[in-house]
């Protein structure tokens, strides 16, 4: 059973360099209780994908070029704003990278939590309050009833991210989209937040899409992983498979370039070159100018996403060779 099914998604942005595809031909599924990791560097299109699912992309400058996003039997891309509003909150919740700026500074935590309940459910002030306290307790905030009257600036970054999570989950969504939820946090706090997300998934059973640039976070959290580069999916696999037998040269390069606590290497392996600019994407495979396995055909053929092994797909012309290594 799938909860969310994205197909052939293409998101275009109008810029001074003309219209560019920030997300190109992206598709994936999410099952209930599953955690899908989306990794990529800047410009990979991972956040744009998330905002497209939520219907939160600013239009203009963006527009959906093609594709579908099916959630509970309806295509979200076909829904009007009013219907989409009923999806946000009770259907899909979202948390963001910057807990410092994602909460409104002039309203109390309680007010921001309760208004979400008020808008989506017909319940009295007392129930709203109880629900808010319950959610704060659930995300591990001590003395939740007292925190309701606090303003965001009175809380630390980690606490604010907990409040954001409480707010995203207060209407029991089926899916939580977490866009770089720990990037702005310190490493000890990051671990607490990741643990909290895992616990909540176990308790509430929602599906999670976690978007990050950090391979470690994906390895700790995800069941399946999508690797994105310059707007396209380059590899997709279950998490153990991806980390143990990566196929795509970009995935391999990324894994090799991370200095880990365990390794004793003298030199790091690197991916040469720089990330392509979205308005000047290379022809053929977008990674080919930086790729050590490049052959002539790479510059003319766009490699399709195809199976390598059971449940493992990659988009590279030489993936059979690479997989056999």
């Amino acid at each position: 059973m799938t909860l969310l099914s994205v197909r052939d998604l293409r998101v275009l942005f109008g810029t001074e360099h003309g219209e560019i595809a920030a997300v190109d031909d992206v598709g994936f599924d999410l099952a209930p209780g599953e955690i899908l990791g989306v990794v990529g560097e800047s410009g990979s299109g991972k956040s744009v994908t998330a905002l497209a699912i939520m219907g939160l992309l600013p239009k203009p400058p963006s527009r959906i070029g093609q594709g579908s996003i099916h959630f509970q039997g309806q295509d979200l891309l076909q829904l009007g704003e009013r219907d989409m509003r009923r999806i946000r909150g009770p259907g899909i919740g979202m948390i963001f990278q910057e807990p410092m700026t994602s909460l409104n500074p002039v309203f109390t935590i309680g007010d921001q939590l309760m208004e979400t309940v008020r808008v989506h459910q017909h319940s009295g002030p007392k129930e709203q309050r109880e629900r808010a306290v319950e959610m704060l307790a659930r995300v591990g905030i001590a003395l939740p009833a007292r925190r309701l009257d606090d303003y965001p600036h009175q809380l630390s970054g980690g606490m604010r991210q907990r409040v954001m999570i409480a707010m995203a989950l207060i209407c029991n969504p089926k899916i939580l989209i977490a866009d770089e939820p720990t990037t702005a946090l310190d490493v000890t706090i990051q671990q607490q937040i990741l643990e909290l997300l895992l616990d909540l998934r176990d308790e509430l059973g929602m599906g999670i899409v976690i978007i990050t640039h950090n391979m470690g976070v994906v390895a700790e959290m995800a069941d399946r992983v999508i690797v994105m580069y310059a707007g396209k999916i380059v590899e997709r696999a279950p998490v153990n498979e991806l980390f143990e037998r990566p196929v795509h040269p970009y995935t391999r390069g990324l894994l090799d370039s991370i200095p880990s606590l365990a390794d004793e290497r003298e030199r790091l392996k690197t991916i040469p070159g720089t990330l392509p600019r979205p308005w000047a994407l290379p022809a053929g495979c977008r990674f080919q100018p930086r790729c050590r396995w490049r052959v002539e055909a790479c510059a003319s053929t766009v490699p399709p996403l195809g199976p390598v092994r059971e449940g493992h797909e990659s988009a590279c012309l030489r993936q059979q060779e690479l997989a056999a290594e």
Partner: protein
Amino acid sequence: MGRVILRSIAGAIPVVLLVTLITFGLMRLIPGDVSAALGGITSTTEEREQIRKNLGLDEPVHVQLLKWYGGLLRADLGRSHFLGKDVTTATFERLPVSFSLSLYALVITLILGIVSGILAALRQNTWVDQAAMMFALIGVSMPNFWLGLMMIVLFSVHLGWLPTGGYVPFTQDPIGWLRSTTMPAISLALLQVGLLARITRSTMLEVLRQDYVRTARAKGLPNYLVIGKHALANAMIPIITVIGIIVSLSVSGAVVTETVFSIPGVGQLLTSAILNRDYPMIQGGLLFVTLMLVGINIAVDVAYAWLDPRVRFERG
């Protein structure tokens, strides 16, 4: 909150001291012999001596300064020989006139400025935005005295709808007050409307880009809450500070507008004082108005703290 008020007042003290000092110095900056200028070329030495004595200019500067501050403490801004009245009394007599006019203009400003600014921001790059911004641009570009004159030519001279000038107190005749103050209030308000509309629009656009607005949308809040609550509450914070500037502008504007429409307010009092070289009146009036503005700015500070919990808590 009490501490915010105290701190605003404490912060204003050095400014007030300097303002009084500058006003005092202004009189002493008059180039050449004031008495000669005032008495005319034909005045005798005795006449000039008398003028200097009346202005208190015959004493050493430090004595003058002490007397100046002594007078200030007793709310005594000196005496206008030209009007034959205390400066304080003369100002207070005129104050209700200017006050009612400025308030009228401020109401127009707040309603038109904020509404058109918000509409322009919400409909960015549409004809609504362009029309509102065109209107605002005309507002900030139009000299208000000229606008006043043009309105007189059109509505009073040609159409005869409204009086060309004069003032009717509200307490005497509310309709008459409205008839006598509407044109002046509009000519006074137009610049401020333009300014406020432009600032409201840019503030609103800025706020709409903020992460917490995206959060509000991601929660599935309807538009009226996203904009009317989350965005507006934050946009009001900078807008409040602009209102301080606008009140200051309206004081300047009133001087001119009252002259154009022959309204007997503080502005006209000052203008005639200038033309008549009534120095105590100029000095006193300028100081009075400025101190009033300092008071308004304290009120703005307090309102700011009231709107922004970060200020209220961290500093209060």
